[in-house]
């Protein structure tokens, strides 16, 4: 089992943002975390990636406890991340963004003399090739179209050969066609590398089209869990979503 989350709690002031959430995630699986606004998705996510410390509960990633561990250490254990609003290095080229992650992975961050642009070129190009960005490798990241930026982020997230990918709203801000392409690409990569993926998403087409399993959060609690068909038929889920969107998905 890649990830075992057990009894996660987090409160802000008097609000119980995440209330006793437990789930498991296995290699090669695409698990979607959904719920209406304010359900606790982001809080849950930020506890997994180290930005928030849970009040209680444990997050086991293989043999390591992730609860309360700093983001950069979580990354070193083999967890890659993409952000809802892309975070890349604007003053670097597409390839350099990936090389940067590779330099960190190979622990060369304090090397003062080698030319960074000449390091790990082949590895970086292989990753960019995998996400379909090899032809734009020399362009500055600051001029890319948003959908391309998301692909660069995916390549960066793969640089440390992660066993778990955390994707926060992977298709937010993208055109419908791009969304499908990016999720299909993610699904392929996950299958070939046996990576476990946890993602949050607002777009129900993306969720029901690509997730293997779905977790539904409402008011901090897990109200449903199962494959897309099961979740779609769940009465409580229908109620939470007012029966509107899911019925037609």
């Amino acid at each position: 089992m890649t990830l075992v989350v057990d009894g996660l709690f987090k409160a802000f002031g008097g609000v119980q943002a995440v209330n006793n959430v437990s789930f498991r995630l296995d290699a090669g699986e695409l698990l979607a975390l959904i719920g209406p606004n304010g359900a606790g998705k982001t809080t849950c996510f930020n506890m997994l990636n180290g930005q928030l410390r849970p009040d209680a509960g444990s997050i086991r990633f293989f043999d390591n406890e992730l609860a309360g561990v700093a983001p950069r250490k979580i990354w070193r254990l083999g967890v890659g991340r993409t952000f809802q609003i892309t975070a890349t290095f604007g003053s670097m080229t597409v390839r350099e963004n990936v090389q940067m992650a590779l330099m960190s992975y190979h622990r060369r961050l304090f090397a003062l003399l080698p030319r960074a642009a000449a390091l790990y070129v082949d590895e970086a190009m292989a990753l960019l090739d995998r996400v379909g960005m090899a032809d734009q490798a020399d362009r500055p990241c600051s001029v890319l179209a948003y959908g391309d930026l998301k692909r660069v982020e995916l390549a960066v997230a793969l640089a440390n050969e992660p066993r778990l990918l955390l994707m926060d709203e992977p298709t937010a801000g993208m055109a419908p066609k791009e969304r499908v392409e990016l999720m299909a690409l993610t699904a392929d990569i996950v299958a070939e590398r046996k990576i476990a993926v946890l993602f949050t998403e607002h777009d129900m087409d993306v969720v029901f089209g690509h997730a293997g399993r779905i977790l539904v959060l409402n008011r901090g609690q897990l109200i449903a869990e199962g494959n897309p068909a099961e979740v779609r038929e769940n009465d409580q889920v229908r109620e939470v979503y007012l029966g509107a969107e899911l019925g037609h998905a």
Partner: protein
Amino acid sequence: MGFYIVQVLTGLSSAAALFLVASGLSIIFGVTRVVNLAHGSFYMLGAYIAYSLIDLFGRGGLGFWGGIVLAAVAVGMIGAIVEVLILRRVYQAPELFQLVATFGVILVIQDIALLVWGAEDLVGHRAPGLTGAVDIMGTPLPAYDLALIAISPVVLAGLWLLFNRTRWGTLVRAATQDREMVGALGVNQAWLFTGTFFLGSMLAGLGGAVQLPKGGADLLMDFNVIAAAFVVVVVGGMGSIFGAFLAAVLIAELNAFGILVFPEITLVLMFLVMAVVLIFRPWGLLGSPEAPGQKGQQGPPEQPLRPAPVRVQMAGVAVVGFLALLPVVAGPFALVLTVDILIFALFAVSLHFIMGPGGMVSFGHAAYFGGGAYGAALLIHYANSNMESAMALGPVLAAVLALVFGWFCVRLSGVYLAMLTLAFAQVAWSVVFQWNDVTGGDDGLLYIVKSAWADTAQSWVPFYLLTAVLCLSAMLFLRRVLFSPFGYAMRACRDSELRSHAIGINVLEQRWLAFTLSGVAAGVAGSLYVFSKGSAFPDYMSIPLSFDALIMVLLGGVKTLLGPIVGAVTFTWIQDEISRFEYWRFFLGLAIILLVIAFPQGIAGFGRRYLGPWFGIRAEEAQ
């Protein structure tokens, strides 16, 4: 008992001028994001103009208070004129660039004040009806102090009404919180900014005018007050008027009592307070964290680093060849000037290293320049060291200072980081200034002689060559580091802290070592400088020298690697040329202002744009 009450009241009265100046600075920064170095000059002008007006109007009650109020209004108008004529042209320039223009304004105002009011300190007029002293439980307190104590709350209340009960004030508060949003709502920003400058400058002028009966007017007031005003603004929290009031009172009281316990501490006390406050409350006592998107990144995004094309490399070789042949053709004066230029170029490059690619602005980089200078000078004086080993080991002191100060500074960002570097530099300066037994205090350490082979008496050539080799190597080394994984990681931390954490970069550690490396390079420049001058003075650590470095970097262009070198050459050369005139500050200030308006992307940024294609620097695609 009476003594202590009087001490409290004295503290409160000296808080008045401080609060007035600081609140103006805070309002201007909050709305326009301009770090207005000339704010101290407005304070000084307030004092001088009030002096002249009171002379003109006569010294009756109406003449005195009327003179003070009119002086404040006049200074407000001067501030508005500066905004309209100069700053309005450079709002689109990269962050902090505007402060270069305000530095030019300082110099211009200094010489205008010298021309109009003369070099003699002026003793202020006494306030009519408040010339005596009040007896407080047996201890006298000047009656005018009571008037000063009353002024701060009155102004504070007035500002509160202005900001909470008028439409204009609401706009100012809104702009302080989110400038872009206010612009998007269709507010005429130009007049909002001009009005803000009027108000802020008027408060500075009022501060200078009301302290006239106590402190008089002199030509050093501008620099003396500006550091204190920055401290008050930062301790109180940027943009918080009430915070500024609280901080002014806190610092004035600490000074009033600190001077009783440990007189030497007054020079550093407020900087220590600021350091402590920023370490525990990184946004000041009543400030709030900067909203995202307020970092003020203006203009096009920075371009990826590309290795120098062949023609640029050839130009570099030509410069080295020129420097190598210079001793053959040039006389000693030119060599001495070139030594200065080389040393300051290295100093500026070391600052640019953290400020540009590192994204950490230092207002106190002279601490490390002076650290290297004193490191070498102390070794000569106390360890009987020779020139070579003093030069090699001197920068160790700079490294130690950078390690210690940097550890705190890299935890902050933006203007708060800049202010903390200023505070630490001022602490280092005052230690050097006051520790007479070891550093010689204001008299400095003299007789720092070169080794025989590089001795001035025979010729400047050997020392010039030594300087050229060391400075060029150090600059090339820093350039190389920028292209290394370390330099890339430093840039990564600046571009996106979030992403840096998410790919395993220890952002604080990376920044800390970058800060230290930059400090060591500044220290190398400093240790060369003591041997070139033959002495070490506290000036080498002072705020003006830190500002010089800042001006060089910004003037040259912070977004290009050649910028700091171009800036250092231009600034040092112009200063050398102009300083032969009587009113050289005026002309230097004017030159700086003109350069700022002509080259809002910095001189090297301008050169890159128009000469770049010929040198084979390819134009990057724009967004």
